[in-house]
């Protein structure tokens, strides 16, 4: 930690990990309701738990991004954050808003647009927090050194905050509602968040591998160019069946096929940088999460996205468990794992100590990643059967669901592994104060 104000990130990461815990526990409960549907059905119905699961995820990922920005912007700009106080006020607003949203969901007060169910006052709170954030980091950025990493990060964060405006636009016409809803949902996760992801990954590669900045930054511009060139018109893959014109079937199919490219590029980038750098950075856990994030993002967002993105395929798979399979692995690889990479890298530095507890952290990586992969496979099988029975044969929804019980049981099992991994990660970050496995002697060349 080179600048005192970077310490703000610590509070953001703590809040993010708290919500991460809530998110995965909510997910586990949902998985159990699939297995045993009468569970809590009168007290805490499925729709309420699902709002908590998805909203907690989105907010903690954003908190992670904001924390990462407060950590890396001072270091890149070579100066303290404009105002530490504003950063804490922003965090307080977000935490109060999130707890307020969860509380009001529990008593049945919520909106009804998926992922944007927050009561209006919470939406305004998020807007205010976003404005504070943009002012705070922009003033830091403008006063200091400008690098490609901060250029791209700032562009991603500005655009994602601006797109939040669409959360307030809810036309009475359902099809218009859906079309503008995607301006937040798609243009966040398949465009602007990718810029944030690329910038954070670039920063981690710079620190962990020691490769020349010039090389990293050129890669970054190429990656984000492919992300936006494919991702903006790739929105079309959500416009096949919601009342939008038929030409989106071709635009969506073609451009969203290219959405695989930035994820392949980010994976290649990470591995090439590690190969070129050959720096023996002591934080192996952060390196594992960085490589793991870009790899799982390629499979979850890239491969599993392509699996059902062509309109001829999507006509049958749309709205089945195939979508759930893709959504889970994509979010985990691209954004969960990337945030955990940043936490793993920054937390030891923020607490001014060596990166202890790496073995537990790396074990949590394999537990979570293995669990998420297994969950994705079971949901993909469930979705394949569902697509065939429901969309091709024409069997009714619940008759089909009754045939999928085994997959939902296995999915619950994989959820247990993910929750254990998440708790282990949080434990290794916050509690353990020494290395559990002693590292071997250094500098013994292999044969």
């Amino acid at each position, binding site marked *: 930690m080179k600048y005192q104000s970077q310490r703000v990130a610590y509070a953001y990461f703590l809040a993010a990990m708290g919500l991460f815990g809530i998110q995965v526990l909510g997910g586990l409960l949902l998985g159990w309701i699939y297995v045993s549907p009468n569970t809590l059905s009168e007290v805490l119905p499925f729709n309420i738990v699902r709002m908590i699961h998805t909203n907690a995820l989105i907010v903690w990922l954003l908190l992670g991004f904001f924390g990462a920005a407060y950590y890396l912007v001072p270091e890149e700009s070579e100066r303290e954050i404009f105002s530490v106080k504003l950063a804490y006020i922003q965090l307080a607003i977000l935490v109060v808003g999130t707890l307020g949203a969860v509380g009001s969901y529990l008593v049945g007060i919520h909106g009804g647009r998926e992922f944007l169910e927050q009561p209006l006052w919470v939406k305004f709170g998020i807007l205010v927090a976003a404005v504070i954030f943009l002012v705070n980091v922009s003033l830091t950025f403008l006063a200091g050194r400008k690098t490609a990493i901060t250029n791209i990060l700032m562009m991603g964060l500005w655009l994602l905050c601006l797109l939040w405006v669409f959360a307030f636009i809810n036309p009475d016409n359902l099809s218009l509602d859906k079309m503008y809803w995607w301006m937040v949902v798609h243009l966040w996760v398949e465009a602007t968040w990718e810029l944030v992801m690329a910038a954070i990954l670039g920063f981690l590669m710079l620190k962990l591998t020691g490769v020349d900045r010039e090389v990293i930054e050129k890669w970054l511009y190429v990656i984000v160019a492919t992300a936006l060139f494919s991702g903006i018109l790739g929105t079309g893959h959500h416009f096949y069946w919601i009342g939008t014109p038929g030409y*989106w079937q071709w635009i969506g199919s073609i451009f969203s096929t290219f959405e695989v490219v930035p994820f392949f590029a980010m994976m290649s980038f990470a591995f090439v940088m590690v190969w070129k750098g050959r720096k023996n950075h002591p934080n192996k856990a952060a390196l594992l999460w960085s490589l793991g994030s870009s790899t799982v993002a390629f499979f979850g967002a890239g491969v599993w996205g392509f699996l059902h993105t062509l309109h001829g395929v999507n006509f049958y798979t749309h*709205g089945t468990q195939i979508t759930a399979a893709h959504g889970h692995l994509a979010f985990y690889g691209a954004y969960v794992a990337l945030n955990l990479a940043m936490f793993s890298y920054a937390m030891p530095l923020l607490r001014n100590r060596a990166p202890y507890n790496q073995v537990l952290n790396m074990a949590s990586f394999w537990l979570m990643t293995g669990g998420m992969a297994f969950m994705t496979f079971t949901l993909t099988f469930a979705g394949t059967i569902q697509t065939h029975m429901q969309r091709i044969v024409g069997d009714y929804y619940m008759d089909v669901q009754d045939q999928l019980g085994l997959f939902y049981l296995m999915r619950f099992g994989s959820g247990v592994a993910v929750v254990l991994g998440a708790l282990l990660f949080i434990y290794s970050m916050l509690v353990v104060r020494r290395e559990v496995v002693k590292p071997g002697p250094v500098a013994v060349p292999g044969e």
Partner: protein
Amino acid sequence: MSELLTKSRARNVFYGGSIFFVVVFVALTAQSHRHIVDKATAGMPLTEEVRLGKHVWERHSCINCHTLHGEGAYFAPEVGNVMTRWGAQDDPELAYEILDGWMKAQPSGIEGRRQMPHFEITEEEMRALAEFLRWADQTDTQNWPPNDAG
């Protein structure tokens, strides 16, 4: 490649190309907006009752179990074509009666079945919800879903 593609060239391609795609996207979105209003959803008027029905749909967060035009949670059946499935798409009274009867019977309490919660909905709101679902059903969704099963 390293001489041809310098960092500043890569940056300029990124900025220029992004602006180009944003412009194309905004133009297509504007055209799609008109298409939705004038064609895809023009089969039934967007009445006050349909609007109220949409608010009822949102207030109870139906989307977090059901799908509507394939979007939502995947825990309960598709409702974008439920009125067709019930044979009530052209009969507002029948649409209301089936919906009302179904909603009042929830939760079923049957062991091992997914449970739909009980919702406090007035008659006016229930009629509006039925109209909203009929309105959604008449949307030109490019023939999706493939069959009535949804």
